[in-house]
């Protein structure tokens, strides 16, 4: 596979942003729904907990509704995630950017990077549950339709990031 030296440059961010906005608008108009990415994680969490402790999972309010569905993974957001993986792969492959590895700062060990990833991931998971959606499902989808909560959420993301990014210097710098 191609290495980074020959990978094509990324698109102009404004053009990529408008492209993303057109995909989002088409999703509203054709499907009457939005984009998102944290739904499958909630479903995986529910099914995973149920497989080891089914009675406990059934009594967990966040999971009860999902677990009553006959097929928890036959769901709009799961299919959306499948498409996201496909679209990401096709774009990366065409541009010569499919390259197994761990992205990290020049001075970070792989171990430190992966611990940071899992810690950040847990915060993303808790945050997505509290906010009823992640950066795509809540900020993009709701922001594009002028939902007040989504705009408050979007601004909070930047506040949270700027308040703490210096703590992550060892990972990225």
């Amino acid at each position, binding site marked *: 596979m191609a290495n980074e030296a020959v990978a094509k440059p990324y698109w102009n961010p404004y053009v990529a942003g408008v492209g993303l*906005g057109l995909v989002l608008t088409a999703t509203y108009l054709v499907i*009457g729904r939005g984009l998102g990415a944290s739904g499958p*994680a909630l479903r995986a969490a529910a099914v995973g907990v149920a497989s080891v402790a089914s009675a406990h999972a059934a009594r967990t309010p966040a999971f009860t509704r999902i677990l009553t569905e006959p097929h928890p993974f036959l769901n*709009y957001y799961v299919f*959306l995630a499948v498409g996201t993986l496909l679209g990401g792969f096709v774009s990366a492959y065409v541009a010569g950017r499919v390259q197994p590895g761990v992205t990290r700062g020049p001075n970070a060990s792989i171990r430190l990077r992966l611990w940071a990833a899992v810690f950040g991931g847990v915060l993303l998971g808790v945050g997505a549950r509290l906010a009823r959606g992640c950066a795509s499902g809540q900020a993009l989808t709701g922001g594009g339709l002028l939902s007040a909560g989504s705009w408050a959420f979007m601004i909070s993301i930047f506040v949270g990031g700027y308040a703490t990014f210096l703590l992550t210097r060892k990972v990225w710098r």
Partner: protein
Amino acid sequence: MTLFPLQVAVENPNVAMGLAVLAGFGFGFMLERAGFGDSRKLLGQFFGNEMVMLKVMFSAVATAVVLTAALDGVGLLDLRALGTLVTTETWIWPMIAGGLLIGVGIVFSGYCPGTSFVGMASGKLDAAVTYAGVVAGQILAAELERGEAWRRFFASGARGHLFLYDLLGIPAAVVALAVAAIAVGSFLFGEWVERRLGGEGAPPSPTGPKRFVFGAFAGVALVAVATLALPSGARAVQRSAGRIGVEELARRVFEAPWTVRLLDVRGAEPCAVARIPGAECVAAAELTGLGLDAEPPVRDLVIVGAGELPEPPAGAMAFPGRVLLLSGGFAAWQGWALTPPTPPAADAPTAEREGFRLQSGVYAAMTGVKQPAAAAPSGGGAAPKRKKAGGGGGGCGG
């Protein structure tokens, strides 16, 4: 009747799931093109070398905002109805807290859940580990939610469907123009920061695409604003009244009565005898004199007829917010709320048991007669449960 969204997908989950793969493909493709398959690119936002998250995210949001506002202006869609269909309700405090947590999560993991898919598709192990963390975070949040205090916070600041045009009290097209202006302003500011911090190393910003994108934002937003000058009668005719079922109405009347205004148009006498809690008795002929057009559109207006109303009574559509007709009218309400419900079997599906709890709660409130408790799996008695508490159909919480 508006053209969008296409009813076939809204009403048929299988069609929606098939189309979801296509929508996801576009989503993943664009995120990868922007560079989010590599976590270092996203972190450039915070370390100041390239404000890529601001540029991509805000461009995407501004595109959607100006396009939907313009389509609403020319009558091809009903922006409020679309927003109510697609977005989650607003719970202001947990959303701010969730946003702060996600901001911290982004700088540690280098991804948001959406971009981690793209990282995984590019072969990045850290992206897969991040998404595993997201699953663990969902489990942690679900466990925390078993506690009363956390649940109270989770449900705090509930404002129902709240849109910026309602909050600010100005037309959506004007908000869209402001969003376009703020987006362009923030891009110019971001590029100034890039130049200050990066000097010669600042990322190139060719003027060609920028001129095109900024011009398109301004152009479409101005079209949306221009549609405000169209005769308002034409716009009002294109708006259609929605329908609300008795069960959904009962939920709202008992859980969030501040989100609905009920007008009972059956006439003074039957309305004086019995009506839905909180309903105002207004003869249909008097609707035009209520000054509904000057009401702030923060609550939904629900019209209650004797039976099914084929169309909203004259004057109701002057209300600038959402107008809903009670399906089946008061007769349906009576049949549902004033008939003693039968308890479901203990092994009935959760939805059925929940439905019974709601119905017996409403029945008790309306008649003073308590029903035997359902075989409830969790405490909560007759209190109706919020249907869309987070894990609902909207956003990516589903």
